[in-house]
């Protein structure tokens, strides 16, 4: 489930495709081309010197990165981003996994209601619950600040861990637990010695997905962050919406730094999870 193995199929497909297939591939190519344009123009611009009325900048330089690093205080921003994301991952796994275990294994009164309550934060747009939540956090003095950012980011993360872990736990054979119980294991031993090792791949996948989501989460962080608790996305947004004050290229450089952190995370994530798992649990079907 966690790491996918590429299956080698020996069946060869016809090389000559139907017009429909050509149309589909052309659409994919067009989308990817535009995507490359969107990402590439930021990348090229961040290395360029002057770029006004030509295909490419007049010269290339790396100095925008140094400028962006100093101007935006990126060392602080990145370390804040890391602190916040790791805290969110840790807490959401600690809260989410036991809950997912109970939801996967047990039936109890009001179970559907509880499931619905966990689903709501994912279904609601972040701004909808973010504004009342930010108001409450400000009232209790938790925002603006790191505590507020972590708490607000937990709102979609905990349900996310629960929803990804529940099917993962469901597929672990319950008779393993029964056997352990029969051999005299208590709840703690059951979790630490039997379930824990079996759950590691699932927890790792969920944790990485939460990490990617938290680093990329804009709205909730934006609503609760103070000047010293901005994550990379929020800092980027502020520098972009105040355009004209800073050189365009140094904003581009910052955007590239943001993208490369995300890409590093993504590469790590893809070592553990199937791409389709990023959005849904995929059922691996054997090839016909």
């Amino acid at each position: 489930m966690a790491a996918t193995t590429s299956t080698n199929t020996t069946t060869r497909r016809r090389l000559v495709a139907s017009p429909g297939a050509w149309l589909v591939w052309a659409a994919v190519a067009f989308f990817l081309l535009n995507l490359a344009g969107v990402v590439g123009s930021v990348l090229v611009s961040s290395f360029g010197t002057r770029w006004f009325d030509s295909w490419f900048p007049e010269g290339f330089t790396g100095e925008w990165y140094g400028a962006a690093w100093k101007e935006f205080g990126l060392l602080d921003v990145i370390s804040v981003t890391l602190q916040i994301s790791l805290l969110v991952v840790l807490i959401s796994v600690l809260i989410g996994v036991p809950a997912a275990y109970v939801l996967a294994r047990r039936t109890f009164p009001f179970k559907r209601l509880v499931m619905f309550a966990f689903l709501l934060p994912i279904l609601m747009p972040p701004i909808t619950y973010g504004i009342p939540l930010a108001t409450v956090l400000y009232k209790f003095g938790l925002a603006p600040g790191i505590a507020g950012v972590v708490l607000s980011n937990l709102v979609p993360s905990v349900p996310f861990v629960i929803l990804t872990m529940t099917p993962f736990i469901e597929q672990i054979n319950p008779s393993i637990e029964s056997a352990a119980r029969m051999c005299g294991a208590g709840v703690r031993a059951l979790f630490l010695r039997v379930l824990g090792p079996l759950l590691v791949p699932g927890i790792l996948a969920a944790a990485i997905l939460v990490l990617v989501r938290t680093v990329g989460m804009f709205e909730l962080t934006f609503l609760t962050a103070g000047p010293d608790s901005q994550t990379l996305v929020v800092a980027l947004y502020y520098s972009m919406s105040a355009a004209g004050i800073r050189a365009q290229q140094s904003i581009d450089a910052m955007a590239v730094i943001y993208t490369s952190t995300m890409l590093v995370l993504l590469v790590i994530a893809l070592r553990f999870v199937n791409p389709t798992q990023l959005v849904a649990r995929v059922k691996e079907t054997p090839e016909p």
Partner: protein
Amino acid sequence: MTLTAERAPADPGLRHRLAERGVDRQLLLLLPAVLFVVLLFLYPFFYGLQLSFAPAQGGPFASYIAFFSDSYQSGTIWITLKLALPAALLNVLASVPIAYRMRGNFRGKRLLTILLVVPITLGTVLTAQGLRNFLGPNGWFDRLLGAIGIADMPQLVQNYWGVFFSLVITGFPFAFLLILSYLSGIDPTLERAAATLGADWKQRFLRITLPLLAPGLATTFCLTFVLAFSVFPSAVLVGDPAGSTRVLSLAAYQAAYEKFDYSLASAIAMIMGAVELIVIGVVLLARSQLYTGTTGGKG
């Protein structure tokens, strides 16, 4: 390691009866998560609901009246729907043929899926910056069109279309991967059985695959719609935040952080949630009429 068996409780009666209904100490594991949802989601939600009915001046409904009587505010509902519905629909409908084409195994599939995941991680802010550079005046797209002789292109960013494109770029890969996973969940033997009975691919798609995929399509539409509906950064960065792309979330943000009218902001947030839930409710109601069996594009 010594392990102590659980001691029998002093009063077995009540505990036994509870355990029979599925309530015992193991449910305590659920407690942190429930507590968490109550404290950080439900409490703020009801606090906001109460706040929206308690404006600084005027009756309990003053914030709602203020929103609906001002066309600059109430127009945001329509603006948001006009952006989110077509974007979500396009993302879902475009994904179906592409995912249908790609559900088998072929060389480079993993690379292609990875390429399609990238926009999900880019996030709205980088996409906005890229769109500004790429589609803006003198950007590559503009120059390319100029090179092949199409001049006088309408403006593509800082208006409705800029936001629409950013919604497609971030939403399409999401919809595609979801639909691809639903499609690969459909038992391929069903389609082969139909083929042996003489159904051509059109019949197989319309009569076998599509009905099984339909619930998955409804779910995908809902999730893509939620993403598009809560559009915020790109509406500011590549849109026209004072006019044609002044979406609901922007109106709520401005009420809270620029006018400091928390009652109005909460009211807008509640209206936003209500509108979204109505759309999702309609889709899910239609979905409940569909077949959601075991071999289906699951639900």
